[in-house]
């Protein structure tokens, strides 16, 4: 048991994408999914308790070591990453696709009330969004959905892990009400 945990830990260190339980299982010739999951959970809490520079996260259907956000500024001194900075418009478009996928462009534009062609192209280029296929309606419009990369970038386990948008009632409270 202890050994499995170590093997998994070593795999996680070398893997260049989130490792899924299935993938680990195929590598280990290990039929028991439960055992792998247990080892992963133990690893996760070990790294959590250690409070070191990184931790083990569950993202995009797999597990991956990631640095703690507290140290972002130091890492940026080391690697100067390309900033992913997304505009408000891009984030809105992405949110619509994430919550409503599969969705056609027309429906996206209907919600935002503006043309989204340029933003969609940019999201496609950044691989946050992909074309799933075409919808069987006149004009056969392209159908959009989010990618695995999207889950990785936003640190989501899967699509169910998407944060629930605030209900409007609450939102209303954050906006000061009419004074009586």
């Amino acid at each position: 048991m202890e050994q499995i945990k170590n093997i998994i830990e070593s795999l996680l260190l070398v893997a260049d994408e989130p490792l899924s339980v299935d993938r680990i299982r195929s590598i280990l010739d290990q039929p028991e999914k439960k055992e792998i999951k247990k080892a992963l959970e133990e690893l996760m809490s070990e790294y959590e308790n250690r409070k070191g520079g990184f931790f083990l996260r569950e993202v995009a259907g797999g597990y991956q070591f990631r640095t703690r956000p507290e140290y972002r500024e130091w890492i940026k001194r080391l690697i100067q990453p390309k900033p992913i900075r997304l505009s408000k418009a891009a984030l809105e478009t992405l949110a619509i696709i994430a919550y409503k996928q599969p969705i056609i462009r027309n429906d996206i534009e209907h919600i935002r009330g503006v043309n989204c062609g340029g933003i969609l192209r940019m999201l496609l280029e950044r691989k946050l969004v992909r074309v799933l296929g075409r919808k069987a309606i006149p004009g056969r419009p392209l159908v959009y959905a989010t990618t695995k990369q999207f889950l990785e970038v936003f640190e989501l386990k899967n699509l169910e892990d998407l944060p629930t948008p605030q209900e409007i009632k609450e939102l209303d409270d954050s906006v000061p009400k009419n004074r009586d």
Partner: protein
Amino acid sequence: MKEDVYKVQIENIFEGPMDLLVHLIKKHEMDIYDIPIALITEQYLKYLEWMKSINIDIAGDFILMASTLTKIKSKMLLPVHGEEDEDEDPRLEIVKPLEEYLRIRSAADKLASRNLLGEDTFVRNPHQENFSADQDGEIIKVGLFELIDAFQKILERISAQRGVDILTADTISVRDRIAQLIDTFETKKSVTFNELFSSNVDKSEVVVTFLAILEMVRLSLITIAQNIQTGTIRLFYL
């Protein structure tokens, strides 16, 4: 006063009519379930006027919203006769989309506040390539010229096979070809460049297929890589 309006505008460049509406609702502390429609219509039109005066081209979307608002306003003014309208509030026409839009805005904010990869959190090997260890040896990304080269070879092969082009009745559009190719990729994940052309020897079809591939690359549906040793070009579905 004038300066005040100016300032607000510079800080908020409204991307669309919904954006502007939300701004006005917040600014005037309105309840979205009880919007004073006359006031908001007036404010909305005022902004459009102002935008015109500083020579911002007003997009059709803004005008459409203005007409919707005006329509609702006039409906509100009409006395309600009988029961046929079932007291449906004409304002629902904008309240529903507004709700939806606000929900999306809050979702977008929540997404933005997460620990973003490459911004807040990092992985050990950030410069990963998309196509992981390949089936047939070392591969490199392909540029446009290699692609055109490969395309020319296929065209040559075709003209060698038949001297004259036969007119075919049913030509396929680039769009439909993309749909077909997506089907192929869904099942196969990756295909060699030549495989895509082996079955059809008609020149126009070859051209359509090639255009479809270019379009799919542009849409980031596929990436193209070439084996260093064999020169085989392979297309990967993303």
